[in-house]
């Protein structure tokens, strides 16, 4: 394996690490804001389940990511540029405390690099269509499931007037829902990096074009995202856990369970979805069971704008990087 390939794998794993760092908030925001776990306990819990996901889910999402660009188009410089664009976009949004999607940054980044290298025809329309549809569907699914679960809980426990007792019960249940969500997060997000490394190994003829993801890549990607979660980003915890709507243990349980179900469904179907979008939709869903005004729509709107700008933003950064590299190396 050449030094370049090893270096780019290092960058891809660094992206995965930063993905865990950036998205740690999604897994633990509700657990921390409802004081079920301390921040340190919560990140350790989430990191463990991020890693454990490798044993449960396949690599269908990795296959989708590796097919976003036509086979044979990407070279080492383009893959590096794609990762660079995604990382830069993640850093920008992390700096402003916006819970945007690392996944869509990666897709936008790879697309920008591929277009700079070989034009628009290098993109596979069907794969983009699948990803684009789920940009809208995944938060909506999280929203609907969370509302349904939360309303179901209210209906089941409507005679349960001891608020503290009920919330105490859901404090414990939240450990399970946070674990489920972290499993889904690890499974879907780690596979995006696996897809990039798979594309890199195929581009360098280290693997045949129809190869599946090698085990060492699976383990490396899950380790990177788990470690990233362990060092989690606290700015976004604040936005997710308190600013969108105030979350109680019963709401945290509903939001995490709903988001976990939506993400696991997408993972099994091979669709790379944003864990950030999904949990945000679910948190809004639980807020809506109280009243629409419980949701701070100004903050939610700011988040939506950051989502809309993610793919174009990462696309532009990667396109510029790839165009500059082409000029330097020509």
């Amino acid at each position, binding site marked *: 394996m050449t030094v370049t390939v090893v270096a780019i794998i290092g960058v891809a794993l660094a992206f995965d690490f930063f993905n865990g760092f950036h998205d740690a908030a999604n897994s633990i925001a509700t657990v921390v804001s409802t004081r079920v776990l301390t921040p340190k306990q919560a990140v350790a819990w989430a990191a463990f389940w991020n890693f454990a996901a490798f044993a449960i889910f396949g690599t269908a999402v990795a296959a989708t990511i590796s097919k976003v660009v036509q086979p044979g188009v990407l070279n080492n410089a383009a893959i590096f540029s794609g990762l660079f664009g995604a990382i830069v976009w993640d850093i920008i949004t992390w700096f402003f405390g916006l819970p945007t999607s690392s996944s869509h940054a990666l897709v936008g980044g790879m697309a920008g690099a591929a277009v700079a290298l070989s034009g628009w025809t290098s993109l596979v329309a069907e794969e983009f269509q699948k990803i684009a549809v789920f940009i809208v569907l995944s938060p909506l699914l999280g929203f609907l499931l969370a509302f349904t679960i939360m309303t179901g809980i209210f209906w089941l426990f409507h005679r349960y007037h001891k608020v503290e007792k009920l919330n105490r019960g859901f404090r414990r249940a939240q450990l399970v829902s946070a674990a489920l969500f972290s499993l889904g997060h690890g499974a879907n997000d780690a596979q995006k990096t696996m897809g990039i490394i798979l594309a890199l190994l195929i581009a360098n003829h280290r693997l045949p074009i129809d190869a599946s993801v090698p085990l060492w890549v699976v383990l490396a990607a899950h380790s990177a995202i788990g470690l990233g979660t362990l060092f989690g980003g606290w700015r976004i915890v604040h936005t997710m856990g308190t600013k969108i709507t105030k979350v109680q243990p019963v709401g945290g349980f509903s939001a995490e369970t709903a988001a976990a179900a939506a993400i696991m469904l997408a993972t099994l179907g091979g669709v790379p979805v944003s864990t950030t979008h999904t949990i945000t939709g679910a948190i809004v869903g639980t807020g809506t069971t*109280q009243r629409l005004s419980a949701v701070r729509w100004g903050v939610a709107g700011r988040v939506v704008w950051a989502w809309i700008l993610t793919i174009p933003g990462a696309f532009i950064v990667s396109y510029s990087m790839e165009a500059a590299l082409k000029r330097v190396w020509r």
Partner: protein
Amino acid sequence: MTFGRRPLFFLAAGVISVLLLAPTPETFWWVNVTMAGIAFFWFVMLAIEEGQGDRDTPDEPRGKGRPDDLEGEDRR
């Protein structure tokens, strides 16, 4: 007949799910259909609830006896 914001919110979610059927790959149509079903179900339920003027509706100000009683929790 007029609806409040919450039923309309779910109606919009259902309509979006149906509209997205066209660009969604056929293998995932069941996701759209399920989502639309859930959204329209809650649209109808919330519309009925509003129509009845049920005092227990979650749109009412929270009391202390609800599990999501934020104000009640805060006071403690």
